[in-house]
C-alpha cells in the first residue's frame, strides 16, 4: 500500500502514479525488448502470437469489458483485417498504406455491425454478431477470386530496409511496438470522456443518456474502435501465419477471444495481457497434456474446446474478476500481510436489473 501526495490534478491523470510503477513497467519493457536475444525462433514466434492475441484482446475488452456489449463474432473482424491487408498487398499496395486501410475498413464494418446494436439489448447483439461471423465466413469461403476460397491465399511478405516481416524476430519487435502503442491508446481513451462514456453505457444506459451521452454514437464508436484493434491484430496475424485460410477464423477463435477477456479479467487492460498469455499458451499446455495422459483421455475429440469451456465456467463461477483480479488480491495480501482481511475483496453482488418491461 502506498500513498501518493498529489499536489496537482495532472498527477491524478497520469498513467503511472508514482516512480515505483514507472520502474516496474520500464523493467518489463526492457525484458520484452531483450527477450528475443535469449530465445530461439520458435519461442519468439509463440510470443508474437501472444502479442497478436493481446492486440485483438484490447479490442474485445473495450467492447465487452468496458461498454458491456457482447460480441460472439470477433473472429470475423480478425479475418476482415487479415484478408483485406493480404489482398491489398497482393495488388502491390505498399505495406504502409495497406495496413491502415485494412484497419480503417475493419473499423467501418464494425461501425456498421454496431448499428443494429443501437436498438437492441445485449442479448440480440450477441446473436447478431454470431450471425455476422457466419456470413463473413461464408463470403470468405465462396469469394474465390479474391480470397482463394477454401484453398486459402498466401500473404505477400514485403521488405523494408532489408527486413522482412516473415522473419519472426522482425515481426516480434513490430508486434511488440504495435501492442505497446495499442495499450497506450486504449489507456488514454479510458481516462478520457469517451472511455468513460463506454463505462456509462455499460452500467446504466438510461442514466448515461440523461448525463448527455449520445447512446447511438457511443456504441457505434465502441464497435468501430473494437473492430479497428481486432483488424490490426488481423494484419499482424496475416504476417505471422503467412497463409490465410478460412479455418484460421472460426467460432472457436471468437470464443478464444472471449476466454481471453474473461480469464484476464473483465474491465482491465492488465487483464488483456494476462489473458493473452493464457490463451496463447493454453493450446501448448493441452497438447503437452495429451501426450502425458492415457490415450483414451488424450484422444477425445474436442478435448481442447472442452478444456476451454471448463476453464471459462470455472472462472465465471469462482473468479469473475479473472487473473488480474486474483493478482490484485495476492498483491494486497502481500502488502497488508498480517492484517489482510478476506472481506476486502468480497464480491459485490449486484442484483439483476432488468432491461425489460413485461
Amino acid at each position, binding site marked *: 500500500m502506498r500513498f501518493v501526495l498529489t499536489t496537482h490534478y495532472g498527477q491524478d491523470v497520469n498513467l503511472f502514479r508514482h516512480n515505483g510503477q514507472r520502474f516496474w513497467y520500464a523493467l518489463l519493457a526492457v525484458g520484452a525488448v531483450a527477450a528475443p536475444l535469449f530465445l530461439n525462433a520458435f519461442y519468439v514466434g509463440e510470443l508474437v502470437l501472444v502479442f497478436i492475441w493481446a492486440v485483438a484482446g484490447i479490442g474485445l475488452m473495450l467492447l465487452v469489458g468496458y461498454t458491456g456489449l457482447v460480441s460472439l463474432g470477433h473472429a470475423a473482424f480478425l479475418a476482415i483485417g487479415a484478408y483485406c491487408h493480404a489482398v491489398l498487398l497482393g495488388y502491390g499496395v505498399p505495406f504502409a498504406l495497406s495496413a491502415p486501410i485494412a484497419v480503417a475498413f475493419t473499423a467501418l464494418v464494425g461501425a456498421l455491425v454496431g448499428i443494429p446494436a443501437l436498438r437492441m439489448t445485449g442479448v440480440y447483439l450477441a446473436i447478431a454478431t454470431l450471425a455476422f461471423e457466419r456470413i463473413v465466413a461464408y463470403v470468405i469461403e465462396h469469394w474465390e477470386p479474391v480470397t482463394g476460397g477454401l484453398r486459402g491465399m498466401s500473404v505477400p511478405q514485403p521488405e523494408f530496409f532489408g527486413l522482412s516481416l516473415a522473419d519472426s524476430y522482425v515481426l516480434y519487435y513490430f508486434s511488440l511496438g504495435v501492442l505497446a502503442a495499442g495499450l497506450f491508446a486504449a489507456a*488514454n481513451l479510458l481516462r*478520457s470522456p469517451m472511455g468513460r462514456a463506454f463505462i*456509462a453505457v455499460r452500467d446504466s444506459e*438510461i*442514466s448515461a443518456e*440523461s448525463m*448527455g451521452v449520445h447512446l447511438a454514437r457511443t456504441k457505434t464508436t465502441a464497435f468501430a474502435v473494437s473492430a479497428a484493434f481486432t483488424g490490426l491484430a488481423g494484419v499482424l496475424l496475416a504476417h505471422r501465419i503467412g497463409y490465410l485460410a478460412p479455418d484460421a477464423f472460426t467460432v472457436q477463435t471468437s470464443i478464444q477471444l472471449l476466454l481471453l477477456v474473461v480469464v484476464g479479467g473483465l474491465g482491465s487492460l492488465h487483464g488483456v495481457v494476462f489473458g493473452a498469455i493464457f490463451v496463447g499458451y493454453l493450446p501448448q499446455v493441452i497438447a503437452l497434456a495429451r501426450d502425458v495422459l492415457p490415450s483414451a483421455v488424450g484422444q477425445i475429440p474436442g478435448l481442447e474446446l472442452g478444456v476451454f469451456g471448463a476453464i471459462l465456467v470455472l472462472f465465471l463461477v469462482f473468479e469473475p474478476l479473472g487473473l488480474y483480479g486474483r493478482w490484485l488480491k495476492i498483491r494486497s495480501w502481500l502488502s497488508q500481510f498480517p492484517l489482510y482481511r478476506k472481506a476486502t475483496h468480497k464480491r459485490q453482488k449486484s*442484483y439483476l436489473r432488468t432491461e425489460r418491461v413485461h
Partner: protein
Amino acid sequence: MILPAGEPAPTLFEARDLSLSFGGVKAVRDVSFEIRRGEVFSIIGPNGAGKTTIFNLINRIYDADAGTMSFNGEDMSRVPGHRVAELGITRTFQNTELFDRATVLENLLIGRHVHRRTNLVAECLFLPSARRQEVAFRSYAEQIIDLLDLQASRDQMAGALPYGTRKVVEIARALCAEPQLLLLDEPSSGLNPEESEDLAFWIEDISADLGVTIAMVEHDMNLVTTVSNRVMAMADGAAITTGTPSDVQNHPEVLRAYLGDFEGSDVPGEREGAPLARKEPSAGEREGEPLARKEPSAGEREGAPLARKEQCEGEPLANKEPPTVEH
C-alpha cells in the same frame, strides 16, 4: 432559495398542457406549470399521481402525447434525450441509477460529459488538449465533492456505497454537468432523518451557492416546506394547485387527494414504516387464485428483479390500490 422580493424571477422552464397515457391509463393530463429561475420548485402528490412521469417527460425519456415544453424560451418538446443535459437540465433517479462498477470520481467525471470538447483521436493520443480538459474536469469534480462532503467515498466503487451516499453521489453527478435546472426525483426516499436534514442544507447550498434552479418530486413534507419556494400538487395525473408550501398544504383538494380517496396509502411520513413485504394479501392469493393475473398497475411491473434487495418502489403487493401509473 433566497429570492429577491418584488417581481417574480424570469421563467426558466415552462410546460403547457402536457398529456401522456400508457395504454388506457392517463398518467399525465393537461399539466401546465412554470419553473422560475433560481427557485426551488416541488411537485407533491400521492403515489401514482404522475410526478415522476413529468420528470421523464422533461428528460425526454417519453414523448408527450400532447403539449409543449420550453426551456429558456426555446421549445424543447422534441429534442433527443441526450441533448437535454446539453441544454442544461440534469436529474437524479428515484431508485438511483449510478454507474455501479465505476468509482464515485468516475461517476462525477461522466457527469461532465456534456463539456467534452476533445475528439477520439486527441483522446487516444492524450494530446495536451485532452490533458488540459481532464485536469479541468477533475478540478470541477473535486469542488462538487467538497460541496457535498464526498471525500471519503471518492475512490470507492459506486455499487458498494450505502444507499444514502448513493443518493448524494447522484446529486453530485448531476451537478457536475453545471446544469441550470436540476431535477431531483424523491431525493429523501430511503434516507434516515439525519441524512434528510443534511439534504435540506445541501439543497439550499446548491440553490444559493451554485445558483442552480431545482425542481423536485418529494414526499417528505418537512423537506418540501423547508426548502421550496413554490409547490405543485398533483393527483391522478392532473395538477390540483400551485402555490406557496403552506397554501398548497391547506388546499382542500390536496387534503382530499391524500386523505380521502387514497386511504393512508401514502401519507408522508408513513412511508418509512411501510413494510416491504406486507403479507396479508398473499394468503388469499396462494389458494389457487390466478397467479398470472395482470394488474393494470405499471408500478407492479417495476423491474422484476431476480433478487433485488433495494426498496422496490411500488412494492408489488403492499399498495395495490392506485391503479394509475407511477412512471
